[in-house]
């Protein structure tokens, strides 16, 4: 009926998992980075900002290669994480999620940073006068007020994760059931003469998933929108 093979379904489910995990896992990191960039001035700030933008600026293949160098089994970070926490990225779906998270991070950070920078900071200060410690202020004022940005950043990151290909395949290769996400499967189809129809079918699946995510985010956003003032 759907014209989707079992392998296609595997890729779809994997992509969903990878995109969700990538988005969720990069949220705290993105939030922290956005907060630091929005609220503090320190030497090296622009460098940090630049670093976050790197995955956007570099060709994805290069990003993937750098991930391989650092998070691979023999890479310094990869080796460390393996040893200390048994966290292995190479050739695992976790690596695909890492690649997607890294590629989506600049989008996530920017969106959150934008809402943080446009906040009326006097509200945080008002919370302070009521006795709230900075962390509590962050959790009860800063964070909720940044929700539109967090939502937007998550959607961007999720969409990017659905589409990410170059960095993922370079970093963790294209192993069906483990690291073969939808884009990797699509790529394979496009490389075979006559594979276009299959590629388009999978692309359509991606699009449908992202539309669902968008609709969900719109519903959430509409709830949040109440906090913006308007007469009518």
């Amino acid at each position, binding site marked *: 009926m759907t014209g989707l093979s079992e392998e296609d379904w595997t890729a779809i489910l994997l992509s969903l998992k990878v995109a969700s995990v990538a988005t969720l896992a990069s949220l705290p990191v993105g939030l922290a980075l956005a907060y630091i960039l929005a609220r503090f001035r320190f030497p090296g700030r622009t460098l940090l900002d630049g670093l976050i933008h790197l995955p956007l600026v570099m060709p994805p293949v290069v990003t993937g290669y750098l991930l391989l160098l650092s998070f691979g089994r*023999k890479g310094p970070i990869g080796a460390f994480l393996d040893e200390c926490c048994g966290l292995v990225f*190479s050739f695992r779906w976790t690596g695909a999620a890492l690649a997607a998270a890294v590629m989506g991070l600049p989008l996530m950070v920017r969106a959150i940073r934008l809402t943080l920078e446009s906040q009326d900071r006097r509200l945080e200060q008002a919370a302070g006068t009521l006795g709230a410690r900075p962390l509590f202020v962050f959790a009860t004022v800063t964070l909720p007020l940044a929700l539109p940005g967090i939502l937007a950043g998550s959607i961007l990151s999720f969409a990017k994760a659905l589409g990410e290909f170059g960095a993922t395949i370079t970093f963790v290769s294209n192993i069906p059931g483990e690291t073969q996400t939808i884009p990797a499967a699509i790529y*394979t189809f496009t490389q075979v003469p006559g594979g276009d129809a299959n590629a388009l079918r999978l692309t359509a699946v991606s699009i449908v998933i992202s539309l669902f995510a968008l609709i969900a985010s719109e519903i959430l956003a509409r709830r949040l929108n109440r906090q913006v003032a308007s007469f009518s």
Partner: protein
Amino acid sequence: DPVNVFAAASLKNALDAVSEVWKAEAGKETKNTYAASSALAKQIEQGAPADVFISADLDWMDYVAEKKLIKSDTRKTLLGNQLVLVAAKDSGLKLEIKEGADLAGALARGKLAVGDVKAVPAGKYAKAALEKLGLWASVEKSLAMSENVRAALALVARGEAKLGIVYATDAKAEKEVAVAGVFPEDSHPPIVYPVAVIVSSKNADAEAFVTYLSSPKAQEIFTAQGFTILK
């Protein structure tokens, strides 16, 4: 006008050198555009301003031939390549590749890096060879497929994958890997780089350049890079 050459990316080093020599000898220039064979073929289909197409495998040359996009009389098979098994340089691994060879044992549960077996030419050849030698089933689950053969090579060089199947040309230039074995010529379809002039080309020098590709000077450059010359 320079001759617009659309060539598989793996030919870059060799072809750039040939172009230079040609320029010195004939005073004519080429403009070389490198990308995946698949992309180039589809672009030619969409009217890309190419005069010459050099594909990394037969499939995509056949694709454009079927659509009558090349001058069939100019098509020829230019180069060949060998398929080799590589391992990290310090592993000292050697394996005679034949039917019944213990490839799985050599992998020792590690990964076998290859080009995408459906998409990337080197991957397709690797799969054919493994099937022919009856090794496919034993390593199928251990494959790590890459977008291109250079990425597969990098996986071996970085120690991520234990072994890899790549072209001899790539293996030769990567210092971190050593050739552990060579696939028998007959274990896979001939690895060929077909070349042809595009139908829509109006550049009179296109055919001359194609001819020049078979000149001794050019062949010398190709062999120096590890390619084989097909008769």
